């Protein structure tokens, strides 16, 4: 099989988007849904085939470009190509995206049944899959940026899917604007990089021997080398999309979208785009701009802890998962940040590995949450309890996912997290400490959720909860299997920073510490939440203001609101609008008024009295003659 087939992985969802979008009031729901799911199924098969070919049929993991056309030419050297770049990480991403997409598509067939905008939903979802796939196979920075924007917009459309709910609209808007702000940095970073290197091409940029790149390190601007600046800006884009602190505020709100969307976009795929971006540019970071990489590690570590702390106090099931996502992405960023290149590249591999496993268990968590919400029509975990009686299958898969994310062996999360912890351990003990602490917190908040929802007292529900339909259960089971077994993949053999196999060994010390932390977390959660208990309330009361700060997510949202509404809107926009109307426009009007005034004042000269004109005329003539006489003599 030739790799050019990969183009169909992109074309299929695009076709579905166009078809469903244009024929949204012609097609029946069943047809549209199966069209989308079927195409995604084919795409998934193609992606797995590609992966099989790439990883098992060829000995070395070269960068391959099976397809490329010129899309837009800027200058002789700078142009945007549209193409497909296959290398270990993009192939891996292809597999992840298509698989999770397929599962979510299937799940949505059940979850969204009977919704009015069913076809619109699948249309947008296909658009998202297309954009995300295009993003990971991008051959150059600009193509990546384009799909990056497309991903952002499909995320906007999907978050705002329930467009008559004001919260959903606001959340969609917020998500788009915050990421747009980050993209501004990204774009400037791209421009800066391309200005010095004269290319957008990944193959050229990431080539460690590229002289132009090395030259950029020599040019400094405000104490930093231009390259560091450019890469930091590019990372800013990644941080926005991956909801890193302080650009994370959109992600919790984004949970207003339908739950399968959260699973696909805001857990498994889109939010890891930032990680993917850093991984894509990793050689440049690693060789030429270690300062930028330090920033990545720092932001990653900070978000990791920050989000985990907030997650412990939230009560909305999806928001807990959202903060958990942020925290897990923090892990990935941290791993990239502490990674070296080549044989020191454990962090890189670990990051990708975690991305891979996380996609499975986090998608599963969201789908499980969706299954619960589907049954209960509410999001607040304090109003749930003892659901294991009503939804046994959901309960089991949810438990598997919780164990996976908590890092209990032999579930997938354990292996990837262990690699990250080892990488952090090798680099900086503080980072290791943060990561290990967060591992404990992760276990705590996940099991807090688990116990509150599935155990505890029976609540009164409006209509008795029921197990979800088969269409929703199948994807969950598939993902659960993935969450159990993906950890055993020898990931370093396939994905590494320099495409050479990397042997990762289980670091026993680290493993023990992390498992201990996880078990500690689970135990605390068990004590607090297994049965109705007053302990959590006591503790939250004891910590008082601190607790409230955490519940209010450290007031970051409020700060943003202050900046946008008070400063930008009230102190900049309105004055500008006022200034434009009352100063600039008034000046233009003033010139008109002044002309009018002058004409009104002098129109008295035109008195209509013939003889007045006569006087003036005669005196004028006399005056002119006088002047002529006297100037002549």
């Amino acid at each position, binding site marked *: 099989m030739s790799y050019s087939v990969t183009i169909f992985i992109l074309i299929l969802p695009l076709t579905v988007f166009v078809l469903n979008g244009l024929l949204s009031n012609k097609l029946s729901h069943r047809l549209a849904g199966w069209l989308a799911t079927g195409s995604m199924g084919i795409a998934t098969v193609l992606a797995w085939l590609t992966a099989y070919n790439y990883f098992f049929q060829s000995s070395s993991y070269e960068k391959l470009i099976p397809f490329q056309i010129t899309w837009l030419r800027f200058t002789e050297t700078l142009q945007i190509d549209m193409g497909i770049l296959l290398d270990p990480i993009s192939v891996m991403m292809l597999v992840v995206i298509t698989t999770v997409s397929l599962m979510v598509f299937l799940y949505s067939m059940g979850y969204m049944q009977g919704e009015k905008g069913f076809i619109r939903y699948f249309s947008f979802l296909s658009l998202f899959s297309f954009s995300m796939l295009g993003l990971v196979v991008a051959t150059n920075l600009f193509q990546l940026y384009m799909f990056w924007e497309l991903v952002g917009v499909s995320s906007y459309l999907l978050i705002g899917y329930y467009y008559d709910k004001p919260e959903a609209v606001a959340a969609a808007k917020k998500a788009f604007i915050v990421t747009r702000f980050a993209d501004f940095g990204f774009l400037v970073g791209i421009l800066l990089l391309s200005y010095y290197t004269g290319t957008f091409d990944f193959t050229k940029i990431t080539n460690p021997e590229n002289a132009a790149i090395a030259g950029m390190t020599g040019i400094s601007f405000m104490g930093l080398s231009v390259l560091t600046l450019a890469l930091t800006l590019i990372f800013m884009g990644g941080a926005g999309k991956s909801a890193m602190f302080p650009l994370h505020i959109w992600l919790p709100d984004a949970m207003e979208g339908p739950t399968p969307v959260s699973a696909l976009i805001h857990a498994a795929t889109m939010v890891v785009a930032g990680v993917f971006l850093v991984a894509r540019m990793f050689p440049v970071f690693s060789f030429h701009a270690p300062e930028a990489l330090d920033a990545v590690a720092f932001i990653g570590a900070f978000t990791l802890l920050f989000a985990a702390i907030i997650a412990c106090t939230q009560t909305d099931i999806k928001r807990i998962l959202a903060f958990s996502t942020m925290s897990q992405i923090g892990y990935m960023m941290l791993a990239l940040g502490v990674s070296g290149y080549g044989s020191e590249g454990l962090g890189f591999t670990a990051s990708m590995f975690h991305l891979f496993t996380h996609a499975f268990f986090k998608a599963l968590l969201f789908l499980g949450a969706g299954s619960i919400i589907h049954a209960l029509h509410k999001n607040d975990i304090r109003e749930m309890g003892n659901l294991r009686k009503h939804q046994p299958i959901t309960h089991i898969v949810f438990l598997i996912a919780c164990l996976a994310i908590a890092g209990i062996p032999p579930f997938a999360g354990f292996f990837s997290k262990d690699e990250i912890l080892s990488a952090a351990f090798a680099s900086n003990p503080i980072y290791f400490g943060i990561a290990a602490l967060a591992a404990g917190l992760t276990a705590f908040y996940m099991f807090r959720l688990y116990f509150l929802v599935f155990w505890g007292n029976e609540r009164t529900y409006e209509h008795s909860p029921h197990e979800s339909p088969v269409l929703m259960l199948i994807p969950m089971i598939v993902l659960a299997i993935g969450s159990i077994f993906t950890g055993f993949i020898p990931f370093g053999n396939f994905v590494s920073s320099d495409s050479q196999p990397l042997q990762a060994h289980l670091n026993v010390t680290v493993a023990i510490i992390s498992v201990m932390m996880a078990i500690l977390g689970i135990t605390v959660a068990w004590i607090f939440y297994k049965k109705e208990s007053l302990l959590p309330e006591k503790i939250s009361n004891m910590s008082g203001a601190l607790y409230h700060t955490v519940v209010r997510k450290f007031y970051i949202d409020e700060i943003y609101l202050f900046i946008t509404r008070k400063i930008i809107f009230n102190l900049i926009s309105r004055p500008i609008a006022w200034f434009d109307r009352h100063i600039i426009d008034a000046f233009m009007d003033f010139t008109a008024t002044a002309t009018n005034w002058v004409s009104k004042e002098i*129109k008295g000269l*035109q*008195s*209509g*009295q*013939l*003889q007045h004109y*006569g*006087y003036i005329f*005669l005196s004028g003539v006399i005056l002119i003659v006088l002047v002529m006489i006297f100037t002549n003599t």
Partner: protein
Amino acid sequence: MMEHVPISHVLMVTSTMFFIGAYGFLTRRNLVTMLIGVELMLNAVNINFVIFDRYLYPDQIEGHFFALFIIAIAAAEAAVAIAIFINLYRNIRSIDVEKVDNMKY
């Protein structure tokens, strides 16, 4: 026949006549009398043409023609002017120039 009269004397006479006409034009309020002033001025100018022709370029008769044309035009002008006066009188019952200022501004 005029060799004994210096040109400047003739011109003085015509200038005097001209300014008398101007005086009339500017002081009178009745439009007809203003027209009389205008006729005087035209007449003075006419004489000037003839006199310059006769004294300075006696071999030519261009001044004669100018005078002729001016007379024709003056006649036309007077006819139109008087038509206007009559129409005006019909409309506002007066031919006082100070009342005719409807078209100011």
